[in-house]
């Protein structure tokens, strides 16, 4: 098996265990036994279970940021509501390709500081947050979004609901991420009140 495939399999197997048992409740031995490998083989690729958790988060965040950056270039050309839709669609699409990453991030949020490169992970999540801020700010400044609600509260809620939706819909996410994203966007932008007429 090629090194890359093997790394990939380790990340997937360990990720699934982390989601069920938490990083603290998972051992390298369990990951190895799940893959019918020796612990030594796992250690050849990763020095610790924490470094595996770290690698899962980095790969997810790197892909997410690359996509956000590509989308973000359009800020002067694309309508804010369309950018908003792309942001949520992109987030869910990338999440669908990284099973376990959102779950690990949210379950371990209080324990992330034990990860070997938590500063880098925090820096990447801060960059992702800034993309959301930028798009929401552009929308407010152009008059497309409301200005009578605190910007940061709105961002926190929208951001949180997007990742919570990923976790709630994990089983259907791969096939249905577009529909799930669009329903969330529809509620957030248009509200739940039935329109007259």
């Amino acid at each position, binding site marked *: 098996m090629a090194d890359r495939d093997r790394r990939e399999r380790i990340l997937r197997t360990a990720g699934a265990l982390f989601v069920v048992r938490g990083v603290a409740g998972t051992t390298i031995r369990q990951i190895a036994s799940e893959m019918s490998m020796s612990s030594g083989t796992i250690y050849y690729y990763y020095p610790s279970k924490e470094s595996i958790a770290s690698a899962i988060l980095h790969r997810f965040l790197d892909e997410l940021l690359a996509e956000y950056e590509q989308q973000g270039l359009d800020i002067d050309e694309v309508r804010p*509501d369309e950018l908003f839709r792309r942001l949520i669609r992109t987030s869910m699409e990338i999440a669908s390709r990284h099973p376990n990453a959102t779950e690990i991030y949210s379950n371990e949020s*209080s324990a992330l500081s034990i990860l070997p490169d938590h500063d880098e992970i925090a820096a990447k999540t801060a960059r992702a947050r800034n993309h959301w801020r930028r798009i929401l700010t552009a929308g407010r400044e152009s*008059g*497309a*979004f*409301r*200005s*009578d*609600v*605190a910007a940061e*509260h*709105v961002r*926190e*809620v*929208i951001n*949180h*609901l997007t990742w*919570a*939706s990923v976790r*709630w819909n994990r089983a259907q996410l791969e096939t249905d991420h577009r529909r799930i994203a669009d*329903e*969330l966007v*529809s*509620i*957030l*932008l*248009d*509200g*739940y*009140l*039935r*329109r*007259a007429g």
Partner: protein
Amino acid sequence: MNGAVRNILDAGGRLFSEYGVAATTVRQIADEAQMSLGGIYHHFSSKEAIASELISRFVGSLEDEYARLARSEGSFQDRIAELVVLSLRISADHPWATETYFREATNLVALPDHENISRAVRRNEMLWLELTTAGVAAGEFRDDVDVAAFTRLLSESVWLTVRLHRPVLAERYELLADELLKLLVEGYRAGAATGRRDG
């Protein structure tokens, strides 16, 4: 409420929210509450009993107020607004109970009163869903999005707001509720509210 008990619940809640029940000791709670260990044990038999009492009081208050709301009249938009406001207000009255509940959600069985807590939580969740469902049936709310999905988004955003805004919750809960309703019920699009159905 007994001042010592309140003090213990508050100190315990702060520690549980940050470290979890498993990683907190009764000794730490005593230090945090500036009481003696004996003083704590006079009121509670264990740290689990403290966490249990903290959460029980909170979900019990919610249940009482929700029951009152279920009997009230008026538009469903107003009743949903009231639901959000009182959820935040009761959360402010019970510092750290929401945080402790969320942290312990996967391990509730460790708490002595977990069966009653789970029952109350289920009843409370059911009330949210009954109100939104009735609002859809009455034609006030959209029928083109899944009512359970919307209800989950709304309640998730309420409990998130509690956790993120804990230090200012007591003074700002009305404003925070208003913002959540503008976002999720009226919609974030500028002018979305003006097209709304009257009454």
